[in-house]
């Protein structure tokens, strides 16, 4: 609507754009001091207008509210689109952030469905350049069919060019042949049908095509307007179409994204550098279905190897010089003290809580490796690679992460399930988490397996880990299908960029974990060790008649099925307190001295190899330690599920133990 007054031509330009694209800066640059600030008619939202003159033209500039689209989602969006439709500015300048072109082009796509001239101000090209995004404005202009002006408004670059371009557009000297988004073929027919129904019924100044499109999008304002305007039969027909195509918004918006994709492919290059390229290259292997899995297995193998190759000898050293020496020192120093006090300190406190502390090196190494993997950004990849397997249990890859922690300790594994969003998936992960063999259980296996199996101990240990994981999968699968019911799992996951690990971050996390572990050893474990010692010493001081023995004898019938005597069952039972107690208990019960010296000979006399294998299997699969059970209760918030978890593991461990022993007997092996 180009007017002429005495001084020359007068035109109106509206500035559109998403929030934070520098639209206000452009407005200030264009209008300088000649601004007027008021409110949009009848609204509390600020309206800014201004004037500039160029080449004999007076240009009224109207700053529209910042909006992401032109759907009547918010007051701002309604103001912007009502202004464009009702006031019909001569040109709409849409300012876009070049560093977020994909997001910004959506508004452009919407603007192009209106019969107005559009000029694109490609702002913040400097930021885009810094982020490695290169946009060719000429190619973008040609693809869009619009004039495109590259700008850095904050540095007053491109504002003059924008003014010149606007002048050329007004004089009809610039090409404006927009390449508009199209909707999917199957919905084009539907749109045509709607256009036919609304033809001649749309109130001025709304464009009919636009109204039909907005109806298909389910725009509430336009729908309300047309419900009033259309006569009964036409509205019913239109309504029936809309009802049938409730999800047509996906076709309409999808068409816009398709269009954005075309524009971006034409004009944008991202010569990715540094972190991004490295991440892409590493991920070609790290997230590959086969190589990714092999890499994960390799990394896991390395972590365990480091943990046991370095940690286990350190554990033995601590055992010798801390626990054994400490107990010996107590006995010597307190030789004249009452027997119960010596027993309490040497056999209860030091043998119980002290032994647990010896596992510190193993935990430190394991958690340092884990912290490193997390800091590098590998954990998300591990979750992704494991996803297909977790998927079989109705879980997603994220559940793998707490389970992975379980190899260190089941307590953080159960707590770690907090990262799982779905309550059902979380419960399932908590229920299977104790089947991950933790360092404490593996330490017991590491001590006992060589006593029974000599050279084959490593093989037996590996077999036990494999058995645990297979059972984890089987139990998970059964729980998924039978108890909890399936849940559809389909996710999109964002993999963070890799980065160089920070020694301080890793060190700090290991330190904090170490402190937490020592606190636990100094409180809960210490208390329970004392209780267990008391049960083994009361009432008469003789272990054979102690309360512990009475409890063990109750379990003897089950033990008999696995070739295990009541002592072995008690050892198993005390592992409930802390897994390491198994060794300590066996030491006490077989009177073979502390820490397992000479325990081998004693055990060889009472256990057959098949019973020993059954015992190790039960030991690995048995109810987790008290701390884990407590955490299961805390995290599930239910005694019922906690009881279920305990019962489940009892059934699983005894079933496997009995099956191994009986099968070996039938096969005539190790009897």
């Amino acid at each position: 609507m180009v007017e002429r007054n005495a001084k020359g031509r007068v035109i109106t330009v509206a500035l559109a754009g998403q929030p934070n694209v520098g639209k206000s800066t452009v407005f200030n640059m264009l209008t300088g001091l000649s601004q007027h600030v008021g409110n949009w008619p009848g609204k509390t939202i600020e309206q800014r207008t201004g004037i500039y003159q160029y080449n004999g033209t007076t240009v009224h500039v109207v700053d529209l509210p910042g909006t992401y689209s032109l759907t009547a989602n918010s007051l701002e969006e309604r103001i912007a689109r009502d202004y464009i439709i009702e006031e019909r500015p001569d040109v709409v300048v849409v300012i876009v952030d070049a560093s977020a072109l994909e997001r910004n082009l959506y508004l452009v796509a919407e603007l192009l469905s209106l019969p107005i001239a559009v000029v694109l101000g490609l702002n913040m090209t400097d930021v885009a350049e810094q982020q490695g995004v290169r946009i060719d404005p000429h190619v973008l202009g040609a693809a869009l069919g619009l004039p495109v002006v590259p700008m850095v408004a904050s540095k007053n670059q491109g504002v003059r060019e924008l003014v010149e371009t606007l002048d050329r557009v007004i004089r009809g000297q610039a090409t404006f042949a927009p390449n508009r988004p199209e909707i999917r073929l199957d919905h084009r027919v539907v749109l045509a049908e709607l256009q036919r129904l609304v033809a001649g019924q749309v109130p001025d100044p709304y464009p009919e095509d636009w109204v039909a499109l907005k109806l298909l999008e389910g725009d509430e304002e336009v729908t309300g307007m047309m419900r009033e305007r259309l006569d009964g039969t036409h509205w019913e027909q239109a309504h029936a179409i809309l009802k049938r195509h409730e999800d047509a918004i996906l076709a309409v918006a999808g068409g816009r994204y398709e269009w954005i994709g075309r524009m971006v492919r034409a004009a944008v290059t991202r010569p990715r550098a540094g972190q991004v390229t490295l991440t892409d290259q590493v991920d070609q292997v790290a997230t590959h279905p086969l190589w990714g899995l092999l890499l994960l297995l390799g990394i896991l193998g390395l972590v365990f190897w480091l943990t046991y190759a370095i940690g286990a000898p350190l554990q033995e050293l601590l055992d010798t010089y801390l626990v054994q020496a400490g107990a010996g020192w107590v006995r010597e120093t307190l030789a004249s003290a009452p027997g119960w006090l010596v027993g309490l300190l040497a056999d209860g406190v030091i043998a119980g809580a002290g032994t647990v502390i010896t596992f510190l090196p193993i935990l430190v190494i394991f958690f340092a490796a884990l912290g490193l993997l997390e800091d590098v950004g590998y954990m998300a990849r591990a979750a992704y690679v494991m996803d297909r397997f977790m998927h079989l249990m109705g879980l997603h890859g994220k559940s793998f992460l707490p389970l992975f922690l379980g190899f260190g300790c089941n307590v953080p594994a159960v707590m770690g399930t907090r990262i799982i969003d779905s309550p059902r998936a979380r419960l399932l992960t908590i229920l299977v988490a104790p089947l991950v063999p933790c360092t404490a259980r593996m330490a017991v296996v590491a001590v006992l397996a060589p006593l029974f199996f000599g050279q084959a101990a490593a093989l037996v240990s590996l077999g036990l880990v494999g058995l645990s994981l297979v059972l984890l999968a089987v139990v998970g699968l059964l729980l998924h299908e039978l108890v909890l019911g399936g849940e559809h799992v389909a996710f999109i996951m964002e993999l963070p960029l890799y980065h160089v690990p920070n020694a301080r971050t890793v060190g700090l996390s290991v330190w904090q974990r170490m402190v937490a572990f020592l606190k636990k050893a100094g409180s809960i474990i210490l208390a329970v060790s004392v209780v267990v010692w008391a049960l083994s010493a009361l009432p008469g001081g003789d272990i054979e008649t102690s309360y512990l023995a009475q409890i063990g004898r109750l379990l003897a019938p089950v033990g008999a099925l696995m070739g295990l005597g009541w002592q072995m069952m008690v050892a198993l039972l005390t592992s409930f307190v802390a897994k390491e107690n198994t060794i300590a208990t066996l030491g006490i019960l077989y009177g073979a001295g502390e820490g397992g010296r000479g325990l081998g000979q004693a055990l060889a006399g009472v256990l057959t190899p098949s019973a020993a294998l059954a015992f190790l299997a039960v030991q690995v699969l048995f109810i987790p330690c008290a701390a884990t059970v407590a955490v299961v209760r805390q995290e599930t918030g239910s005694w019922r599920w906690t009881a279920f978890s305990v019962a489940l593991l009892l059934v699983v461990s005894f079933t496997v133990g009995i099956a191994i022993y009986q099968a070996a007997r039938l096969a005539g092996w190790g009897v």
Partner: protein
Amino acid sequence: MLQRLLEAVARGGTHTRSELARELRVSQELLQEMIDDLARRGYLRPMGEGCDERCAACLLHDTCAIGSPGRMWALTEKGLSLTRGTRNRIRSPGERARIRGERRK
């Protein structure tokens, strides 16, 4: 495009952004726009960044080795119902039983 994205996700399992962007031949930035759009319209559901508010109360919060494995989005029932062609393949027997149960109600 949005429909194709939903269908790709509805095949089940976890997809990475780069994998989906490659499949749809769009930039990862555009894919993110579409994900956000589908989330706004209720076809996808954002799942909290790695560890949500539950983790804030966790005793291990400061030392958690799981950290923040990136943002995730889950396909919603609404999104699933749009991808009829692929729907039956991904249902597990447990889920089918549950749906039958709901129908009976």
